[in-house]
């Protein structure tokens, strides 16, 4: 059972604004703040619904942190494993489209060949405004 009280407790135990561990602080706290969780939830639309999920996140960060042990001074970062591939250039011809009916079948709601979406962006409730929620 996950209650709002535990959530607040986590926040309190994090001891204020200790953010992401920095490079200069390898032994630093692996705690992830509630503000960061809220930010991530809003950005990625995932639900960190439990303390376990947050703990798992912290473990994942710690695991990845071991990369910092490698000395990368003077090494150009690789951004894509496709670096040596050739980027194929397509001729400017119309070869697809015209499948509205097929595509619209994927939509839960359709109005006259338009996809239907909720109005604008629904604003994400702030931390204080969140309803207490329970997860089993």
């Amino acid at each position: 059972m996950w209650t709002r009280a535990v959530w607040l407790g986590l926040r309190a135990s994090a001891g204020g604004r200790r953010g992401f561990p920095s490079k200069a602080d390898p032994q630093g706290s692996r705690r992830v703040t509630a503000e960061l969780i809220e930010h991530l939830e809003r950005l990625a639309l995932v639900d960190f619904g439990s303390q376990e999920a947050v703990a798992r996140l912290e473990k994942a960060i710690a695991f990845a942190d071991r990369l910092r042990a490698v000395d990368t001074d003077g090494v150009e970062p690789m951004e894509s494993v496709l670096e040596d591939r050739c980027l194929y250039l397509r001729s400017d011809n119309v070869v697809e489209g015209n499948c509205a009916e097929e595509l619209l079948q994927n939509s839960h709601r359709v109005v006259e060949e338009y996809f239907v979406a909720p109005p604008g962006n629904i604003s994400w409730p702030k931390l204080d405004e969140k309803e207490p929620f329970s997860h089993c």
Partner: protein
Amino acid sequence: MATPVLRWCCPGRRWVFAGIGGVSRHGRGVPTGSTSSGKRGQSSVAQQPLITAQKPRKGEREWAAVVGLEIHAQIASNSKLFSGSQVDFAAPPNSLVSFFDASLPGTLPVLNRRCVEAAVMTGLALDCHINRRSLFDRKHYFYADLPAGYQITQQRLPIAVNGSLAYSVCVGKRRSQMVTRTARVKQIQLEQDSGKSLHDSLRSQTLIDLNRAGVGLLEVVLEPDMSCGEEAAAAVRELQLILQALGTSQANMAEGQLRVDANISVHNPGEPLGIRTEVKNLNSARFLAKAIDYEIQRQINELENGGKILNETRSFDYKLGCTVPMRDKEGKQDYRLMPEPNLPPLLLYDSGSLPPGTDPQQVINIDQLREQLPELPRVTREKLVQQYGMLPEHSFALLNEVGLLEFFQNVIKETRAEPKKVTSWVLNTFLGFLKQQNLAVSESPVTPSALAELLDLLDRKAISSSAAKQVFQELWRSKGKTPAQIVAEKQLELMQDAEALEQLCCSTLEAHPQVVTDVKKGNPRAINKLIGLVRRATLGRADPTVIKEVLERQLSS
């Protein structure tokens, strides 16, 4: 201190705070609604932007504004940037959408060669450095018209950087002098367009059409080198003409092919730049300058009232004529930019670096594209000025209207009249008639041949210039008649009989001795009366200048 100040400010434009109702100085510490965080969504009072040439009173602060622009131009191509579905403005909803555009799983982006060429050509036309290696990124945000949840763009290493855009503005007291200004081009990048949302507030839903999703865009980022709405509008106009001349974009703002976002801030000259706001949704050439000037004045008013400028995104409300905060853009956006994992780096070559034995379809040669660049508007205007001796303003006017330059050149080809005469007739009379009836050049009832013939008649002195205007009017109204026919019908030919004219002048002088005395007394306007009388006697068929000559000769004898 005056000279450096002028250097910052838009010419002839000193931004001076004048409070609501024209009262000069409000007391400090009166915050307006926008600074209190609770009042989002309320629009500021719609004020007319103040353009004042007054000298700032003692103690009043002077303001300078800086404007940067992000211009999105839809690339004129048959198919989209990363998929083979068609690019078209008007089509049934969702009919021009491929599986990739709809972001169905398992689809991958495939780059359109034409879009890369368009970007390189635009970069070359704006004197940019073309990056031989550029990269694609993903920019993430959630919106229903962005099915993938991210836009593929080129933030980190775009295709072209460090160019410049030269444009002209009218300065001076009577705004008669044209000066050239430059705005630096920070970068040009290729990116995807999003779909279209139609908001249905009645049923609380949004209808999504993905026809536009995935269409190739050129984003041109201009540094904050402009200082007011007029300069920004002039820069956008010049970019529009360049894109149209290159054929890389039709750049029609009304059809959404050219969209402009402005970054605006104000500061006191000599001090660091102020906090900027971003104004989006500037999609009309007519309101571009207005919206920017409004925002500049709003910021000045805010600061003069002791308030602060928030680093926010605003939208221009055309109906109210003011900028309003955009509700969806509260707080700073975190786009989680990451390299696009499905696209290798884009490599471009020049004649020197072209690897041998490669498929020409698969490589892009910058030098080849440079050689094929069409003539830019700037060059066309210079040629007009040199070839025909016209003023720069005239060359601007000729290029400013679709089809007008071609019309002008066709008239020049067929007439013997002097280019200056042709310029004057095309820009004043012809264009005047077009504007009055809101017609495009292509809809003109007068053909270049007809105007050429008319100007020939004028040149031969077969008709007077006032008669020519009458003929033109008739040409406009009636179809199919030639100038010669109209002249014959209305008997507008100039009197060729010199003796008859002499007699008429003589008899007129005899009939009006009082006026003659006035002339001899030195009344300068009396001679005009005589000229008018003779003209009426000749039924308008004599040239007023010739009449004047004859009368003066007869009076002095």
